[in-house]
């Protein structure tokens, strides 16, 4: 914390910055698994689908309670991924169209509920708007605690079960062969993605939180071919994006937090795309010469 106070931030901002750092790390790490399982866009659908959940909780209980909102978000996020699976398995619609259907319909319904709340409860008080693009400056200490503790737990689980996850991601058949509980690990990984989305929406927003799962690990991919290094590097890229986005949006007026974090991540991705030691453009061109 002392590091931040040197830079002249107040106590609340320190909390926010710590939260954004840890959230970025957790999402970058978990995103590495998501990327390898080719579920990047499914996580985007999950994120968009949390909006109606948050709104339903507000309509039902008419209080601004973050735990309730997050439960609602998790429920509709889960429902969305189930809907995608159902559409793929029970009809002739392919994966990408199924994801698109779920994204637009769930989010559209979320907007309907949001405007309903604004009409009937004077919902600008509830601050639900900030869930769309995220607003770090509006977070209070208890919100940030949820983000901080959640991110720490997620990162720890990822580290603890790293070997098992790696085996399940790369070679599910082998994992089954050596007696790993594949389905359980699968569900655990899925729950971790859901959790990182749910705790992140307040800060980054439902529209762009998936970018924090997709972009940092993808940038890391240009530097390494080992999953361990990739997860750590992805986490670090995520942490840098998170904190620089949070700093920029709290110091410059009107800048929305989520988009700034995503832009920071995109910038890191761009640099990695050009200079990454394993797959970057320049090193590859040099090799050709």
């Amino acid at each position, binding site marked *: 914390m002392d590091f931040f106070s040197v830079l002249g931030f107040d106590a609340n901002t320190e909390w926010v910055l710590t939260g954004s750092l840890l959230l970025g790390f957790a999402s970058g790490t978990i995103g590495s698994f998501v990327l390898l399982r080719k579920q990047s866009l499914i996580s985007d659908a999950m994120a968009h689908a949390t909006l109606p959940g948050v709104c339903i909780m507000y309509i039902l209980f008419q209080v601004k309670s973050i735990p309730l909102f997050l439960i609602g978000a998790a429920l509709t996020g889960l429902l969305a991924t189930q809907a995608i699976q159902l559409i793929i398995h029970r009809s002739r619609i392919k994966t990408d169209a199924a994801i*698109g259907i779920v994204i*637009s319909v769930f989010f*559209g319904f979320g*907007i309907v509920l949001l405007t309903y709340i604004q009409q009937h409860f004077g919902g600008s008080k509830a601050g639900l708007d900030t869930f769309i693009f995220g607003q770090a400056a509006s977070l209070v200490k208890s919100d940030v605690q949820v983000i901080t503790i959640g991110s720490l737990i997620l990162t720890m689980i990822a580290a603890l079960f790293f070997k098992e996850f790696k085996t399940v991601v790369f070679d599910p058949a082998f994992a089954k062969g050596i007696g790993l509980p594949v389905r359980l690990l699968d569900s655990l990984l899925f729950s971790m993605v859901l959790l990182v989305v749910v705790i992140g929406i307040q800060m980054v927003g439902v529209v762009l939180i998936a970018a924090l799962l997709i972009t940092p690990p993808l940038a890391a991919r240009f530097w390494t071919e080992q999953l361990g290094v990739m997860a750590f590097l992805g986490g670090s890229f995520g942490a840098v994006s998170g904190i620089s986005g949070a700093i920029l949006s709290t110091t410059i007026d009107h800048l929305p937090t989520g988009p700034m974090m995503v832009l920071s991540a*995109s910038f890191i991705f761009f640099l990695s795309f050009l200079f990454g030691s394993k797959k970057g453009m320049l090193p590859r061109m040099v090799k050709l010469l």
Partner: protein
Amino acid sequence: MNYTLWIILTGCLVGVTCGMSGVLLMLKKMSMIADAISHTVLLGIVGAFFVSQSLNGLPMLIGAAVVGLATAFFVESLHRSGIQSDAAIGVVFTSLFALGVVLISFIGDQVHLDTKHALMGEIAFVPWDTLQIKGESYGPVAVWMLGTVLVLNLILIAVFYKEIKISTFDPQYAKLIGVPVAFVHYLLMGMVSLSTVASFDSVGAILVVAMLIVPGATAYLLTDRFITLLLISGVVGILSAMIGYGAAVYWNVSIAGAMASATGLLFLAAFLFSPKHGWLMKKAKQRRLAANS
């Protein structure tokens, strides 16, 4: 024509224009490209504003079309450099969309262009922004724009009907008999970009995505014939717009959001009850077969 009818007409035009071009993308398994383009178009619109300092139609159309095609190009180049396609789409559209949102926040309050507008559009304001020629009013600009794009799309589909059909269902065979597959591909991307641009300003990103993807998917559950697919997709788009508008007025909620939800309801109905491909219908058929044997 009165206020309500103009809004419904705009919604229907969005539905039929996006529905028909979207179904072509879906058949080529490129629905998520549609999702990406309808987000990044925002950057084109904001960029055009910074260059021209106005919210006029033409610079915006150009800006949006440029960014739309750039999105398709970036995704393809990343994919070719070895990145899996879902991640390539994800990284390109979130980056460009985030850039658009951040740039919007620099514009300030003097113009009616903000993040909310980008997501939900301003369909309720469509009737006020009319085309003026020599002091005469000729109806909303949005209707003219959408109408033009629709006619253009219809002409293109009619002229290249065979080429589009063959290269959609069997690209290899199409190449073999000399159909210019790459040309047809960019023709489709152009049609989608134009439809998106024309719709975006009045209905916002959510509804554009919904109308591009959902009516096509719904139609795909109802028929196997190409021409019927196009027709049903357009009709589903129109129905969604009408149902959505009714619901939005009744509950006093976002029109674009309600229309998007309506596409979802129609899809659900087809998913469950389509005579040939519906889930419940297939189940019932299986049960009947089991009972007979």
